[in-house]
């Protein structure tokens, strides 16, 4: 009898090409996602060795990090940044030369790499998926082992379709019970990171389980898995279920039907995990960060903590607060903000935009606040526009942009001025992440939208009660909107 295995074990075992003691395993990679920023040096390396891409059919490339998001008819002609232009030209050249499918800027399939993989039906249960991007963990929502790699490893995968890897340890993250209204997957992620720390998952792959995880739709599960890396785990995963298969049904590149093997992609009942943590989802509140690490997050209705512990711990908090221009004991609610950014591979999907729109519908954002709404892909943009969400944002006083990473990483000109504070649905609040001197407060789409209305950090829950009364609570419940 085989010993009980975790979901991670099952995927790992099925992809191990060789295993030698004292050596990393050779792991086969089913899908390699590529974007402009982390790939050029890998293609150059390939060329220097006169190697070709082993399996171009297992690669998919997009342009997202440095592409502009203004103008409804974005084309590469709109790109004025010379360096970005060169990088994009190199990607086009490399994909063309090696026969890799590329969804270029402006094309109907273009979008952020972690949004289009699932949307196109390329991300499938049981796969190993890599990308030169740390938020590759997103794809784990489908029961895949998906993780970010560096450029040298990108070159390895291009050349061999394999990677040298040590197996991570399995870490069970259980969210018991159901989420309260107004609390979403982003809040679950920020609560987990606050609890276990930005390095709590180092060396591990999370498996998210429990009632609140099962109740999340696929978009919510992607948000949760996306943030795994912010807790130090390279991967996060959710066992696939009927919701997963329903999401994939009819996607352009997904197979027809549900292979029997997909139903077996779950941890055996008595499988053991190296570590485990349990969080009662029913106690969660909307979360917001106050510092410069995603672990510095608290419920929105609380005060910024005071420094405790040893000198190093105190120094870390003091330094972060000084950078953010905030103080201990200051209530989060009411902290003035300049910009609200709704988008990114964390919260730039249709359900996220629906949630934000549910708060903003028929309202005006605070004067002097800049609201930037950037759909995660052209498909998200089309679907959102078909529902009139674009009009909701524009009428509220926001900007409706074309897809890209935008202000999540500030490589494309969308950025904060030094010292400006933003509530952002992205995933990192590091110093300067949204431009030199930028100050980022991470939150869910509902909390971000509430902040846009108030011009300050705000608790979205009171707003939802009034919206809920007129629209029916469904749209604004913690489970993110239905998805495409």
């Amino acid at each position, binding site marked *: 009898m085989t010993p009980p295995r975790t979901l991670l074990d099952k995927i790992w075992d099925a992809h191990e*090409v*060789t295993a030698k003691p*004292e*050596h*990393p395993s*050779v792991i*086969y990679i089913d899908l390699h996602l590529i974007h402009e*920023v*982390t790939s*050029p*040096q890998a293609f*150059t390396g390939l060329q220097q*060795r006169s190697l070709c891409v*082993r399996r171009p059919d297992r690669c998919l490339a997009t342009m997202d990090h*440095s592409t502009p998001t203004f103008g409804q008819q974005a084309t590469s002609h709109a790109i004025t*940044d010379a*360096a*970005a232009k*060169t*990088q994009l030209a*190199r990607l086009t050249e490399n994909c063309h030369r090696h026969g890799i499918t590329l969804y270029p800027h402006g094309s109907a399939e273009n979008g952020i790499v972690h949004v289009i993989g699932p949307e196109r039906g390329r991300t499938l249960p049981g796969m190993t998926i890599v990308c*030169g991007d*740390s938020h590759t963990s997103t794809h784990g929502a489908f029961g895949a082992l998906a993780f*970010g*790699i*560096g*450029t*040298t*490893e990108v*070159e*390895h995968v291009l*050349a*061999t*379709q*394999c*990677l*040298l890897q040590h197996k*991570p340890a399995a870490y069970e993250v259980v969210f018991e019970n159901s989420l309260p209204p107004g609390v979403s997957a982003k809040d679950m992620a920020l609560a987990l990171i606050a609890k276990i720390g*930005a*390095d709590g998952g*180092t060396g591990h792959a999370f498996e998210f389980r429990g009632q609140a995880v099962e109740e999340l739709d696929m978009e919510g599960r992607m948000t949760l898995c996306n943030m795994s*890396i912010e807790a*130090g785990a*390279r991967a996060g995963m959710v066992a696939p279920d009927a919701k997963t298969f329903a999401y994939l049904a009819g996607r352009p590149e997904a197979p027809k039907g549900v292979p029997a093997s997909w139903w077996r992609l779950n941890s055996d009942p008595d499988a053991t995990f190296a570590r485990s943590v349990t969080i009662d989802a029913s106690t969660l509140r909307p979360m917001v960060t106050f510092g410069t*690490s995603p*672990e510095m997050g608290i419920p929105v209705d609380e005060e910024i903590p005071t420094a405790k512990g040893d*000198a*190093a711990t105190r*120094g*870390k908090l003091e*330094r972060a607060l000084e950078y953010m221009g905030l103080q201990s004991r200051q209530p989060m609610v009411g902290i003035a903000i300049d910009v609200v950014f709704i988008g990114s591979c964390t919260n730039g999907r249709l359900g996220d935009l629906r949630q934000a729109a549910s708060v903003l519908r028929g309202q005006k954002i605070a004067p002097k606040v800049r609201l930037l709404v950037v759909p995660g892909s052209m498909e998200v943009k089309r679907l959102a526009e078909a529902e009139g969400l674009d009009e909701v944002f524009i009428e509220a006083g926001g900007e409706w942009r074309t897809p890209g990473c935008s202000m999540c*990483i*500030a*490589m494309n000109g969308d950025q904060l001025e030094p010292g400006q504070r933003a509530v952002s649905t992205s995933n*990192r609040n*590091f*110093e*300067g*992440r949204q431009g*030199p001197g930028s100050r980022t407060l991470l939150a869910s789409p509902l909390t971000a939208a509430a902040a846009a209305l108030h011009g300050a950090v705000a608790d979205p829950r009171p707003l939802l009660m009034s919206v809920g009364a007129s629209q029916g609570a469904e749209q604004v419940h913690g489970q993110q909107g239905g998805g495409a």
Partner: protein
Amino acid sequence: MKEPEKSFVRLRSMVVPLLRDNVDTDQIIPARFLKVTHRSSLGPAAFADWRRDPAFVLEQERYDGAQILLTGENFGCGSSREHAAWALRGAGFRAVIATSFGDIFRQNALKNALLPVELTPSQHEELLAEAVGQDGVVDVERPASGTPLVEIDLERLVVTMPSGRDLPFDVDPFSRYCLLGGVDQLDYLLSFSKEIANYEVDHG
């Protein structure tokens, strides 16, 4: 442009104390420097935003030529950008000593012959006291008395402190073997071409 050294055996240098936790790859190299299509010449971009402060430790002349960065926990967390390892190499570093590292950064560093040395918190404290200040106080402002040199030996897996005392550390055996011999990991991976082809036949 000279090819950077691909192996690592031992190194003797003073250390630069960057005593912060969670130093993320956005600090090591801000995103605006990622629009390059090459690996070289990223050195000047290392810690570009922090370097605008003249008091920042890397802006201090007395650390010129140091090849070891001594930092806190979870160094290199965040983005997978290998540019972080390239920038540190470009800035002259050959090793980073910390109490823990972000997983992807550690891999990227090892592949660029930038040695990530993980010490326990108590070893870290000892090293700090000897290499930075006698009392181990976290004080980056105070001039280091003289230039205490630290040696990192990958063959013996020890950090030798200025006093001559050894602090043992660990590196995974395969990465150590590659670094000591300058073995290219892609060459090693390519040696499995037959096994990979067989896997593809079996798995469609």
